[in-house]
C-alpha cells in the first residue's frame, strides 16, 4: 500500500472530530464529466426525519453524542460506522426504543415504521411456521384456531413480494440467515410502513442472499424511505443515496460520492481503514 497524498490527519482512530463534516455542503462538486452522479440529488429531498443534538446514554455509557442528522424521504439512507459506533442505537432511538435528550422531528408526521432487526434471538426449536409467524400481526384470532384463507392469502402475497413463497410452510427456526431476513422484511412490509428500517441486513447472510436482499431493497426504493445500518462499505456505496458516517458522533453525512473520501472514512473507522479503502478504490478506478 502506498501512501496517499490525501492522507488523513494523525488523529487517534476513535476520536472523531467534534464538528461533523457535512459532505453535502463542503465537499467538492462531483467530476465534470458527470460520472458517479446520483440519479437524483437527495439534498433536494425533504428530510422525513431530522435529529438535532440527540444524546443517548445506555447505563453508564454514552452511546450517541450530539447526533445531528437528516434522513431524506423516498431514498435509501445508509448509516455506516465501526462496531460500537452506536448505529443500532441510532435507529432504535428513531424507532422510539430508547429515551434521549435533544430533538427528533418527523416531517410531516411520525411515520409508520417497518423494522427488520439485526438478528432474531429466539428459541430456534420453537414450533412455529413462517405462515403462523407472519399471521400473528394480521389476525385477532388466536393461532390455535387456525389461519383463515383470507389471512393466508395476505401472508402468501407478502412472501411473494420478497421472493420467499417457498418458505411458507417451513418452521421459522429452520431458516437460514438470509431467509430469516427476507421473512422479517415481509413482516415489516405487511405493516404498510412509510419508513423501512433495516439493521445490518447483510450480516450472517450468504452472498446470494445478500444480492437478493439488495435487489429487493433497490426495488422498494421508490415506495419507501429506507434506513439501513451497515458496516459493509461497498454495499453502502453501491446502494445508498445518502450516507451517515457515525462513530458515536456524526462524522459526516451526504451522498456516497462525497462521503467516501479517505479523510471522512479515516475519521469514522480509524486511520488505516480509510487509507486501505482509498487505495482499493484507486485500483478499481
Amino acid at each position, binding site marked *: 500500500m502506498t501512501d496517499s497524498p490525501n492522507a488523513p490527519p494523525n488523529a487517534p482512530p476513535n476520536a472523531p472530530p467534534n464538528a461533523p463534516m457535512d459532505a453535502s455542503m463542503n465537499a467538492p462538486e462531483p467530476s465534470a464529466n458527470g460520472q458517479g452522479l446520483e440519479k437524483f440529488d437527495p439534498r433536494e429531498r425533504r428530510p422525513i426525519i431530522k435529529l438535532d443534538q440527540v444524546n443517548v446514554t445506555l447505563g453508564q455509557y454514552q452511546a450517541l453524542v450530539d447526533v445531528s442528522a437528516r434522513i431524506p424521504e423516498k431514498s435509501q439512507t445508509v448509516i455506516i460506522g465501526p462496531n460500537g459506533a452506536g448505529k443500532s442505537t441510532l435507529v432504535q432511538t428513531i424507532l422510539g426504543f430508547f429515551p434521549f435528550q435533544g430533538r427528533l422531528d418527523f416531517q410531516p408526521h411520525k411515520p409508520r415504521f417497518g423494522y427488520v432487526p439485526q438478528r432474531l434471538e*429466539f428459541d430456534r426449536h420453537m*414450533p*412455529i411456521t413462517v405462515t403462523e409467524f407472519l399471521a400473528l*400481526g394480521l389476525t385477532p384470532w388466536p393461532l390455535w384456531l387456525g389461519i383463515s384463507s383470507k389471512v393466508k392469502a395476505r401472508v402468501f402475497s407478502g412472501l411473494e413480494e420478497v421472493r420467499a413463497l417457498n418458505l411458507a410452510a417451513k418452521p421459522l427456526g429452520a431458516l437460514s440467515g438470509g431467509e430469516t431476513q427476507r421473512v422479517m422484511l415481509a413482516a415489516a412490509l405487511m405493516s404498510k410502513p412509510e419508513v423501512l428500517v433495516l439493521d445490518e441486513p447483510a450480516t450472517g447472510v450468504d452472498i446470494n442472499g445478500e444480492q437478493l436482499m439488495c435487489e429487493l431493497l433497490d426495488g422498494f426504493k421508490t415506495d419507501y424511505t429506507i434506513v439501513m445500518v451497515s458496516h459493509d462499505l461497498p454495499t453502502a456505496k453501491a446502494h445508498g443515496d445518502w450516507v451517515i458516517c457515525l462513530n458515536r458522533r456524526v462524522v459526516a453525512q451526504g451522498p456516497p460520492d462525497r462521503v467516501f473520501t479517505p479523510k471522512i472514512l479515516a475519521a469514522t473507522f480509524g486511520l488505516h481503514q480509510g487509507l486501505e479503502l482509498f487505495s482499493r478504490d484507486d485500483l478499481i478506478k
Partner: protein
Amino acid sequence: MEILASIYDFFGFVYEPVFMRRSALAMALLCLSTSSAGVMVVNRRLAFFPDAVGHSVFAGVAIALLFGFNLQLTVLGLSIVIGLTITFLARHSHLASDTIIGLVFSGAVALGLALVSREPQATSGLSRFFLGDVLTVDDGQVLALFALALLSFLFMFFLTNRLTLACVIPKTKKNTWTDYLFGAYLALVVAISVQAVGVLLVTALLIAPAATGRILSVSLKGMFWLALLAGALAGQLGLWASSQPSINATAGATVVLANVLLFCLASLFRRFFPVR
C-alpha cells in the same frame, strides 16, 4: 349442582364412586388449564417459574396461620405477588431470568421455613400442599376449576398471539402489561394446581404436556392441541391408574408419571420419524 351431577355421570362408565367421578372432572378441567398455560411456559423458557411460585405456598400457609387470614386467599394472593415479582425483576434487572427465578424460589422457601419453624402447628396445614390431593375435591373446588378453565380459555384466546410474538421478538414496550398479566395468570394456575398434585409435581403438570406437544409438532397450532390432548389423556390415565388396587398410589404421582410416559413415547416416535 344438578348440572355438576349430570356431568359426573359422564364419567360413570369408568368410575362407580361419586368422589372418583368428581376427581375425574376436576383433573380434566385442571389439565386443560395447565396444559394450555404450559405451552407458553415452555416456549418462553419459564420452566422453573411454576416451581418458584409453587414453593411460595409454604410461606402463604404459614402467614395465613400466623395472622389468622383465609388460607386459600392468602396462598393465591402470595402466589400472584411472587409471580409479579419475578416478572418485574426479569424486566428490570440485568440478570438472566433463571437467576431471578432461583433467587425468588429460595427466598420464598426460606420465608416459609422461617415462619413454619416458629409455628410448629403450621406443618399440619402444609401436608396437603406438599403432596396435593385431587381425590378429596368438593363441588366448590370443581366450580373453581371451571372458572379457572374459563379464565384460561379467555387468556389463551386473547393473548396467545401477543405472547407468541414476544417469544420471537422480545423487548418491545407493548409487551409490558402482557408480561405482568401472564405472570399473575400463571401464578394463579400454579397455586390452584399445587392443591391437586402438590408442590413437588406442579412443574410437571405444566411442562410435560407442552413438551410432548412441542416434540411432535412444527406449528404452534399443532403444539397447542397436542399439549391439551396429552395433558387430558395423562390426567385421566394417571387418575385411573391410581384407583387400581394393584397400583394404589397417590393420584398426583401417577398423573405426573403418565405425563412423563407420554413424553417418552412422543420422543421415541420423533426419533424414528424425524420431522426435518
